[in-house]
């Protein structure tokens, strides 16, 4: 108890937020991906597997081409491809979307595990750059949080605001929302419902693909099987908690990573809590938020229902 209070007094909270923001990046990407897909009516549990696939492909291609940019491009393309596979199974073959997503996750874990072991190498992938601006990073508070972070953190923040504008203020977003709430209305207005859904699922793949790049091209430079550790699912919980709104989903993601960063700090300060139990924190929080928030959430009305003319 003593060490706990001591630690609480000594922690650099600005640094904590910076760490939490960094850790939230893949979760937010998954949440944004979920928002595009689900707002158009397609449940996308597959984001976990898509992120994992992208992480692997980013790593492999970055090593082969010795360029993190080409690696990221390849990863994103692979993510979009797998996302479209999920779309195909859900939209064209009208399989239950949760089954399709679960299947894609198992498929991705199997394929990446196989490829990893079959072509195992010790090579390190080149990193994507950090954004570390000399003058700005020493500013109080906002300095370390914003101006000394990996590049993808900035991409993530831009994506959050861009998604907010796209969904609520553009033609694309309007049509997407119509397709997700009352597809028949969109159909009679002349909009191709399934094409909109495929496109949004592809965008969700793009988001998850960027999230995957974060694992192997920004934090560590190698791939381990199942390295996404459920963060795709946590992203979905953040999406639900944020009521399918990008800015709220971002805040919800921070709500998960701040306690996680706190737990990490406790370890540094030798607070005698077993690390295994601390590591369950994000998963516990996810369960608690889902239990507390499900009844109050307002998902798109046509979510999960394939559209039949």
């Amino acid at each position: 108890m003593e060490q706990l209070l001591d630690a609480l007094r000594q922690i650099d909270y600005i640094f904590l937020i910076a760490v939490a923001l960094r850790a939230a990046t893949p979760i937010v990407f998954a949440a944004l991906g979920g928002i595009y897909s689900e707002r158009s009516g397609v449940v996308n549990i597959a984001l976990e597997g898509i992120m994992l696939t992208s992480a692997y492909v980013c790593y492999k291609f970055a090593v082969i081409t010795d360029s993190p940019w080409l690696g990221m491009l390849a990863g994103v393309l692979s993510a979009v491809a797998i996302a479209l596979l999920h779309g195909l199974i859900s939209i064209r073959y009208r399989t239950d979307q949760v089954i399709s997503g679960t299947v894609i996750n198992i498929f991705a874990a199997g394929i990446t595990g196989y490829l990893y072991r079959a072509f195992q190498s010790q090579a390190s992938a080149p990193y994507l750059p950090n954004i570390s601006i000399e003058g700005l990073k020493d500013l109080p508070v906002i300095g370390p949080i914003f101006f000394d972070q990996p590049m993808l953190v900035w991409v993530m923040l831009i994506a959050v605001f861009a998604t907010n504008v796209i969904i609520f203020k553009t033609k694309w977003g309007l049509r997407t929302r119509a397709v997700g709430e009352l597809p028949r209305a969109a159909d009679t207005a002349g909009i191709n419902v399934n094409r909109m859904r495929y496109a949004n699922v592809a965008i969700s793949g793009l988001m998850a693909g960027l999230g995957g790049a974060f694992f192997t091209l920004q934090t560590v430079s190698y791939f381990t099987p199942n390295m996404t550790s459920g963060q795709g699912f946590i992203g979905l919980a953040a999406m639900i908690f944020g009521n399918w709104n990008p800015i709220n989903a971002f805040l919800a993601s921070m709500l998960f990573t701040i306690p996680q960063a706190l737990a990490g700090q406790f370890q540094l300060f030798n607070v005698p809590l077993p690390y295994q139990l601390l590591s369950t924190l994000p998963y516990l929080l996810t369960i608690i938020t889902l239990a507390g928030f499900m009844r109050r959430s307002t998902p798109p009305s046509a979510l999960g229902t394939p559209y039949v003319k």
Partner: protein
Amino acid sequence: MRNFSFAKLWSGAWPAVASVFLALVVAGLVMVVTGSDPIKAYTSLIEGAFLRPGTDTRPTAFLDTLVSATPYLILALGISLAFTAGLFNIGAEGQLYMGALASVMVGFLVKGLPPIIHLPLSLLAGAVMGALWAGIAGWLKATRGAPEVVTTIMLNYISYSVVNFMVNGPLRHTGTAPRTPDIEPSAVLPNMLPSPERLHWGFVIALLCAVAYYFLVYRSPLGLRIRLVGANKEAARYAGIQVNRTYLITMLISGGLCGLAGGVEILSLYRFMPSEFTTGYGFDSIAVALLGQGNPIGILLAAILFGALANGAGYMQFSSGVSNYIISVLQAFIIVFVAAPGIVRDLFGWIRIKRAAPALPAKGGTK
């Protein structure tokens, strides 16, 4: 059985069989592309899984396949029960772990009981623990509408940490390796045949579970209730069925089966709890459940298939040089094809059209 016909059986089994066949073809293509020989790989796989006879030091291949199939069978029954109610129990892996942990704990902490009591008690502990672990997700779904597909996965991750903590901490055996002490001999699930055969009574337990599953789901009122909730939960509600209570009961039984699988595995083959018990059985069993399509015989056959893949992989790698990780590719494709029978149908239709094309010019000219 009323209303039974072979035509109906085949039409139900066809998607599963076709999916496996197609997956074999695709995995074969992957092997060709990466420079291996699929025919050699598959023949040595079949040899390693079914045909190799036992020797003084090596168990009979087929019997060992049954040993591998045992956990798949019990887990898939549990997952399939959940599917029947419309629930996604992706937490089979975590329930397996927690069940194994509980079984081992009763196995070595409780001393001085005769096997006739100790063994069933340990297995029961596993089943109860699994049921409770799944019950958390079931209760949250029934009372708060929390999606079980996410909560069960979260509970998986939590279970890894719990087992890790317990085995490295309070339950740790003296010595350097992180593991629990061995279980008492009275808690061991014994083998059915003398060494080197590994076939143990757990296989019989699994078969009994399959029989129980049939009677529960297809012949009992509770089973009909579960099926109706899965088919149309609003109509079930209207008819007076308590849907949320049914969800909870289903998850409890499902978790109980998965926990039992953990107990069976650990008390027979391992007889202690290691800190890293990564099996992946819980996820592969989802594929087994999908292949089985809710039919206990189908699930049994699918479990034997996956047992064969697990058992024969080692020999396949040794004999043909193909990395045994191709099995995961195979399983991955099986699961995609089983989930979208439409893809299978389209691909088969495409193959049939290509074969039919040469016949058309011969018929041409008549109109």
